[in-house]
């Protein structure tokens, strides 16, 4: 699968029904016009006159555009960004042509100039609004992160509790340990996911998770860990690795009756951290157990919210093995 590309927040068109957006558009266009007037005319007295004169050129299409965009807002918001922006520019230019026809005689400007100015202004305003959204989207990103919070599979929860109950009389100490591990796991799952954690913590979590699964599955699960070169102080979003291990066991080991090998390898390569998780691939069972794609998309989106284009998540089948690879920039706690 391709590496992370889209930024879901800034890729939406501005909401033209939003008062803030309308106000910004009005202010920016008028400021641009004011700047143009200042550049054109050296005499302060005449600058205002130039501005007012130009206003006759741009205010009508501006107001008309805002009205039309207000009406078209619901439909625009559903379009892909580039298509929507192109449509907005076309709309503005069309309206400029329309108003020029109506008010043109009051302004000393050719139709072509008016259209070009309208188009350029529209493009500039859209760019400004996009940058504005990008700069102010952390609040949205935080909300999104919370929504993407990893969730535990009920199947795992109830089977683990059942395993603890099965152990509690025969081996109370191990039952205790398992409940403590479960408790750590839930604590991590309930964290708000907005701050990064150290790799050492995430590794501790997946080791505990694997221990619980080992208890349930016994010999059917064989974990291999290659963590010698793992940079323990690397920072990453929480619960990126645990769901991958969970999937590896759920899709790779549980459907089989024999031994399933799950490999977890984490290493540092220069300024990148690479993690790979491998499990047996069951082609026939792949349809029966749904949910793998959603988990990967969830992780991909969280990585992207933190690292933008610098993180990569890929999955592929290699013969009888399924492999997920994650690559993130190496950032230790500053």
């Amino acid at each position: 699968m391709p590496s992370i590309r889209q930024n879901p927040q800034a890729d939406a068109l501005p909401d033209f029904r939003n008062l803030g957006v309308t106000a910004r558009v009005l202010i920016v266009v008028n400021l641009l016009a004011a700047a143009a007037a200042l550049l054109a005319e050296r005499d302060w007295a005449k600058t205002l006159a130039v501005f007012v004169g130009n206003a006759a050129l741009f205010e009508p299409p501006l107001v008309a555009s805002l009205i039309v965009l207000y009406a078209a807002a619901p439909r625009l918001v559903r379009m892909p960004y580039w298509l929507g922006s192109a449509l907005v520019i076309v709309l503005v230019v069309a309206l400029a042509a329309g108003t020029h026809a109506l008010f043109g005689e009051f302004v000393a400007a050719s139709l072509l100039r008016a259209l070009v100015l309208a188009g350029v202004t529209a493009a500039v305003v859209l760019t400004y609004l996009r940058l504005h959204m990008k700069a102010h989207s952390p609040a949205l990103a935080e909300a999104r992160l919370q929504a993407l919070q990893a969730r535990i599979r009920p199947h795992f929860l109830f089977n683990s509790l059942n395993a603890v109950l099965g152990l509690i009389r025969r081996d109370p100490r191990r039952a205790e340990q398992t409940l403590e591990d479960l408790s750590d796991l839930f604590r991590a799952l309930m964290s708000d996911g907005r701050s990064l954690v150290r790799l050492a913590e995430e590794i501790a979590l997946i080791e505990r998770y694997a221990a619980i699964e080992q208890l349930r599955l016994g010999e059917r699960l064989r974990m291999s860990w290659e963590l010698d070169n793992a940079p323990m102080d690397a920072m990453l979003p929480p619960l990126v690795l645990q769901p991958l291990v969970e999937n590896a066991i759920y899709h790779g080991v549980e459907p089989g009756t024999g031994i399933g090998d799950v490999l977890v390898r984490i290493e540092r390569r220069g300024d990148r951290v690479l993690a790979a998780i491998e499990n047996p691939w069951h082609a026939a069972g792949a349809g029966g157990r749904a949910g793998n794609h959603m988990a990967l998309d969830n992780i991909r989106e969280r990585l992207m919210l933190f690292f933008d284009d610098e993180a990569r998540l890929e999955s592929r089948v290699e013969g009888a093995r399924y492999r997920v690879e994650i690559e993130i920039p190496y950032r230790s706690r500053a």
Partner: protein
Amino acid sequence: MNELRIFIADDEPLARGRLKELLADIRGELASAVVGEAAGGLEVIDRLPGSGAQVLLLDIQMPGMGGIELARHVCTLENAPAIIFVTAHDRHAVEAFELNALDYLMKPVRAERLASALKKVLAAVPAAGRERIEQLERAATGAREFFSVAERNRIVLVPVGEVLFLKAELKYVTLRTKAGEHLIEEPLVAIEREFAERFVRVHRNCLVARAAIRGFERAADSGEEEPHWNVVLEGLAERLPVSRRQWPALKSVLPEAKE
């Protein structure tokens, strides 16, 4: 001592252990003995028939064979045990159980719930084999992978993929594979419905595996007006007659049908 003979099927050893502990706990209310255990579908098929079990506690999430298909095969036994399904969390399964009045328990199981489920089994009049199988058919989410033939003390599984044709005779249906023949007690129409993609009808009493069709030939005793056709199957010398009524439908369905 009138102990209820119970067979436990669950892929997790701790889960099986827990059920055994609970059964010991409720001994006062209900005497029971565990007559066998299995960790997977095929083990159940292997071990259950000879065990004399009256109740099967069946985890539906075992690897290998799905719980409901397994239950169908178990029901073909002459003295088939009552089945209580066990699930950790499966909304679809639970819906299917509720809709079809199939007994089930949720993991982790409580001693009281286990006791009342078992008592229910003791009190209930066991439903006739065919009726139970129909309930399970309705609860199933997909076609079976095996047909099962119950012999005196064992269940023989015949992979659906190996069946070349099915012929109905009186109450029974003969399954023919490359290796041999088996007799099962199921209506041909139900099989046709369940395996609509896999088997096609060539005659009122005969279904044929589409994948096994090599072609068609004119029957030796054909008259000139309307020829009789036979279907030729992979690896089989025997030719099966295609009924005149089925021939038009067959021709349109199968591209390799030749004149």
